[in-house]
């Protein structure tokens, strides 16, 4: 049974903020909330290496949301940027040109579009080389910054601007969400975790645990997205909660490849989660697409049955 050791009560979450308010990101951004919580462990002595995506707007001249440093790279190579920064910091410290007290954590920020596809080569390379860094993927299950187009993270049944529901494809997106957690796990990094903004203690605990590892520390954060998923910004906590409680977004970690589910939900029916969001409305109106909903439910059930069988 997985237990939190550092963060047992909400009072233990530090009050100090490290992502400052006033950014151009959307109200109710679940990705930003996840990052805000993560930085309570990461602190300010960080250099963020950003890939093209929604978070690009966190540093828009002449402002930045961070007290730490920032480097915008490209959509496909933020982990390679992290490699360059980490290596340079190491070399400069070793050569005595940078005091150890000036050292920084290197944190990649990438959306699912970058993470699941375009930056996969550079992410794979960074993990293979054992780069000591954090990877923070804010997964809103579509190309969000360009207005919600289908990404490899888009789940079956979601409507996006490029997976509209039609006579040929009444369910919207026809393919399943790519399993990036397992792709990462195949690389055997020391630490991988999924997190969700509605579960702050789980999230804080995972960042605290990750700090003990040298090497790639990979985080997949649920970025519930009012703008793209089509719900009221105030409902982000509820959407994030139901993503977890229906079992669609499993909270888990993998230490040296060994998977542990950090929270086992009682699994509400997936409809409870789907119904909240405009991107799934076509599954319920004008007619209920029972087959599609059952398909989603069956996938979740199969996932948890396997997890139970494997004892993870």
């Amino acid at each position, binding site marked *: 049974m997985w237990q939190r050791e550092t963060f047992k009560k909400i009072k233990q979450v530090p009050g100090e903020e490290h992502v400052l308010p006033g950014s151009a990101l959307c109200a109710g951004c679940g990705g930003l909330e996840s990052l805000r919580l993560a930085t309570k462990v990461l602190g300010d002595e960080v250099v963020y290496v950003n890939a093209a995506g929604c978070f690009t707007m966190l540093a828009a001249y002449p402002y930045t949301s961070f007290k730490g440093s920032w*480097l915008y790279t490209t959509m496909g190579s933020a982990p*390679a940027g992290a*490699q360059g920064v980490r290596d340079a910091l190491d070399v*400069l410290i070793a*050569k005595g040109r940078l005091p150890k007290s000036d050292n920084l954590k290197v944190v990649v920020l990438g959306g699912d579009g970058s993470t699941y596809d375009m930056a996969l080569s550079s992410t794979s390379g960074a993990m*293979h080389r054992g780069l000591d860094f954090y990877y923070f993927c804010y997964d809103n299950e579509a190309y969000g910054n360009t207005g919600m187009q289908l990404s490899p993270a888009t789940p079956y049944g979601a409507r996006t601007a490029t997976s509209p529901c039609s006579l040929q494809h009444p369910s919207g997106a026809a393919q399943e969400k790519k399993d990036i957690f397992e792709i990462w796990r195949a690389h055997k990094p020391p630490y991988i975790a999924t997190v969700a903004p509605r579960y702050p203690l789980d999230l804080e605990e995972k960042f605290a645990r990750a700090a003990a590892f040298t090497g790639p520390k990979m985080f997949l954060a649920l970025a519930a997205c009012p703008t793209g998923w089509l719900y009221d910004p105030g409902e982000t906590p509820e959407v994030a909660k139901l993503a977890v409680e229906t079992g669609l977004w499993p909270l888990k970690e993998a230490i040296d490849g060994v998977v542990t589910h950090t929270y086992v939900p009682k699994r509400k029916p997936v409809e409870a989660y789907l119904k909240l969001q405009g991107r799934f409305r076509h599954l319920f109106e004008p007619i209920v697409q029972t087959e599609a909903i059952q398909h989603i439910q069956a996938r979740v059930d199969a996932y948890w049955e396997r997890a139970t069988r494997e004892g993870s």
Partner: protein
Amino acid sequence: MDSQMMTGNLAAAWGARLADVDYIPAFPITPQTEIVEALAKWCEGGELAARFVTMDSEHSMMTAAGAAEATGARVFTATSSQGLLYAFEVLYSISGWRAPLVLVNVSRALAAPITLESDHNDVLAARDSGFLQIHAETCQEVLDSILMAYRIAEDERVMLPVIVNLDGFSLSFTREPVSLPDPEQVRKFLPPFRPAHLGFRASAPHSLGVAVIGGTPYAYFRHQMHLASINALEVHREAAASFEQLFGRRYDVVEGYRLDDAEDVLVMTNACSSTGKAAVDVARAEGKRVGLLRLRMIRPWPADAIRDALRGRRAVAVLDQNLAPGQGGILFQEMAASLYHEVERPRALCSFIGGLGGQNLSVGAFHAIFEQTAKAGVSGKGIGPVLLYTQAEHREMTQLQMVAAGSVKRET
């Protein structure tokens, strides 16, 4: 130190070693690979106190290179051809970060058709990236140019990255005597890299490459890059003087060969300029008053030096080892633009395209260039682009086509 026989590639590696670089992200590609192999060996053996990392692609390699330079390390890397193009968007990022690293490009023609030998469509594709460009003719010049490149790039008036170009095969794999500069002297020429405006540190947070909204800040930063690039002409002049004083070799942004009384001038770049100089000697022996102008610095474009060298000439021929399909020679366009406002501009400008993908530049080809250029000078009417292709090449190609079509077996 005495001269040693070494390839252009090894000379490039020595340039990085003598520059005492801190970091080398690498990715192999023919004909560049020998450079990173040599550096990997030296990093492993302790001859060079740098970290060597093999990356997953040139795109990642250039990103790591730029990011490390932006963190405050002196960075070297090398690529060729497809690799340069694969990394293309990152070139613009690095110059925008004002990260003054040095990239060696070993020129190789671009696919398709895929091939290995040299022309300059790869490096000239990067001409608008914000990188400065120095194109070298000899192995010695490769090494020396890398040292000069760091000095110019890291100057506070410039702070832009540099590509040092050498030709694949004809220079990368050709051994020439190279005098290795004394490391103590190099330290006098190239001070340690201690950038005032770069670096990420806990005590001094820094945001780089941040988004801008609208044209006002964007245009400002782009103008800054242009002005800094132009500054490199003056900084190059200072570096060249200092280099000559310490090492006895002189490099200017352009190099004239037998220009003094030349009526007609052939303009070339890179290693094939040596062939061009030999052709000038042949033509001179025949009594023709011809000379050669080699463009060494391509970015910033040395417009004044070009005008000074070509003022009052009868005719100028530009031999481009590149082809912009539907337009012609890339350097010809830039030469024409530079000469337009020169009152005593040459009477005729001629454009020749040759040496594509390692295509041989024969004695006959140069003979034809000088003949046609002289004629154009007399008539006052420029020609081109002339696509150089000999009858022998045509015969060979016809036979290859017949073999490809399956109608004959190739003669051996």
